[in-house]
């Protein structure tokens, strides 16, 4: 019997899985990486996976990174697929970032701020020189001065708010049930709660590029870094059956508030506006990008013209999720021979017609 289409059987899939495991492990003479080491030493990778995976669990994020050969988008996917199966007990009370235990806090709009500027651990002013000493193992870093502040400092934006210089965020008069992106389909036009949830899970690279595009003139909105703070905040739930608040855990977050120019309108005097970014973990680049894109998407609400990609809510929100994007781009690997056959038939038919017509 002649050759008949390749059979992709169960055996082939099992073999692929075995190969994946052995390639992941690498040379077995080299000590195996533990997920605890990943959790402790690849912290920023872990925090990105928690943020875009939208599940705050360092252990699982580390496991996902190990399992995915360090492919963070794949790790994010693993975490998302796991979180699907988790039950939903409560919505937390809104986080109070004003009482954060600050590890890092800077403002670029004032020279000094109440509580002071605190660089914390940052790559910002480090010369990016490869540190060859790290090639040697068992090095113990020099002890660092503890920098976590136990006091709470007011948000820088509040000083602007007091003068009415910045558009105040409408406070809900009564407790509202927030939109839940993980339980409700995203529909357009999307409100800001839905937009911010989408951005918090969005691919860092995608947001970074979009944010960059606004700075280069595609939806310019004159941003200043009003305040960037990173540290631990308390997560509180309020079970109605108990009638009192319970603090369930502390999580590390990065919060960015951008101050943007706004010329005002007939009804509103000129004032600053806000772009907001919040991420799980220490994810400053992402949080800043998020704040820029959040502000860009407020264009139509603020009466600005909408003509750049970052201002187009549907465009941004529909393409920001890397779990969705990686799947659809890579689905082109699936067999498409039926569609292709249909196209082949069509193109042959069209070629036949044009040949018949030509002398």
């Amino acid at each position, binding site marked *: 019997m002649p*050759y008949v289409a390749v059979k992709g059987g169960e055996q082939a899939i099992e073999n692929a899985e075995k190969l994946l495991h052995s390639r992941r492990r690498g040379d077995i003479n080299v000590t195996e990486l533990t997920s605890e080491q990943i959790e402790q030493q690849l912290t920023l990778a872990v925090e990105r996976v928690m943020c875009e995976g939208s599940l705050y669990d360092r252990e699982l994020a580390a496991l996902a990174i190990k399992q995915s050969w360090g492919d963070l988008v794949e790790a994010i996917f693993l975490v998302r697929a796991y979180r*699907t199966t988790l039950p939903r007990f409560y919505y937390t009370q809104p986080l109070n970032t004003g009482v954060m235990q600050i590890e890092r806090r800077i403002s670029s709009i004032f020279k000094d701020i109440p509580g002071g500027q605190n660089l914390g651990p940052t790559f910002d002013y480090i010369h990016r020189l490869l540190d060859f000493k790290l090639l040697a193992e068992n090095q113990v870093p020099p002890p660092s001065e503890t920098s976590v502040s136990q006091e709470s400092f007011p948000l820088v934006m509040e000083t602007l708010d007091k003068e009415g210089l910045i558009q105040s965020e409408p406070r809900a008069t009564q407790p509202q049930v927030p939109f839940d992106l993980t339980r*409700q389909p995203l529909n357009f036009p999307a409100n800001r709660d839905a937009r911010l949830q989408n951005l918090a899970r969005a691919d860092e690279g995608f947001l970074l590029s979009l944010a960059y595009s606004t700075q280069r003139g595609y939806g310019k909105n004159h941003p200043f870094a009003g305040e960037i703070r990173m540290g631990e905040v308390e997560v509180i739930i309020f079970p109605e059956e108990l009638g009192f608040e319970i603090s369930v855990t502390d999580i590390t977050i990065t919060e960015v508030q951008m101050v943007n120019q706004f010329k005002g309108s007939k009804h509103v005097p000129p004032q600053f506006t806000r772009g907001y970014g919040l991420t799980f973990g220490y994810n400053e680049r992402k949080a800043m990008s998020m704040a820029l894109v959040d502000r860009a998407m407020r264009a139509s609400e603020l009466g600005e013209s909408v003509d750049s990609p970052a201002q187009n809510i549907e465009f941004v929100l529909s393409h920001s999720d890397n779990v969705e994007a990686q799947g659809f781009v890579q689905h082109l690997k699936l*067999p498409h021979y039926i569609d292709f*056959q249909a196209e082949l038939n069509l193109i042959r038919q*069209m070629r036949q017609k044009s040949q018949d017509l030509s002398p």
Partner: protein
Amino acid sequence: MSVSTKHPHFNSGSNSGFNFAYLDEQTKRSIRRALLKAVAIPGHQIPFSSREMPMSYGWGTGGIQITAAIIGQNDVLKVIDQGADDTTNAVNIRRFFRKVCAVETTEETARATLIQTRHRIPETPLQEGQILVYQVPIPEPLRWLEPSTVESRKMHALEEYGPIYVKLYEDITRYGHIATGYDYPVIVEDRYLMSPSPIPRFDNPKMHLNPALQLFGAGREKRIYAVPPYTRVKSLDFEDYPFRVEHWNQPCELCGSTESFLDEVLIDDRGGRMWICSDTDYCQQQRRKK
């Protein structure tokens, strides 16, 4: 804290630890609510809160979620991709449901109560009581004319389907016929314009007045729609340019059928090729009859 107490899934066997059909019952219920709406308004797209599945978006998660929401212990499941039961993704989805439901699976169209498909409708006519679940990549038939869903939803609401006829007309003036080979748009029950998913034109007529329930799931795009049994499904066309399906000048070289959709298979590097049924079960049934 030990790993097992924190994450109960870690210690359970590979088959257990997850709910029947992977999704929790609340999620299944929300999908079934969307399905009921979809059946009530044939061809109309219903948003649903699509979940991340352990397979990639774009690889059938919409169909998988529908199947997961409606499958029961007594169902017999068939999964096909490009008409074949043995393509890798079909094998993989079948394997998934065996793992999380332990239901019976089959390759025989006639024996299946639930058929999940990508890109084909089986050649063997479906019966009352059977359910066909389509995997849909882009549920919006107007997407290529209007990328914004805000706009395309308005067009559906107002039944403003002129632009798609204009597109077909432009095809005719440019090429002499309608240049859409697959995912050929249809009107359901004289009202909603619907994407039949990327099935070949050849399969469109099978949707019309089909005794089976046809459900469509687009996971990444978070939409569900349906064609209930015995619903009118009409492929778009013009009086002077009626809808036509493709045909082949040769029968299947394995079973001799002249009525099935044929795949062109390259058999050597000198341009040799053969034509065989894309529906592997149908092809086998035909050969068995001989």
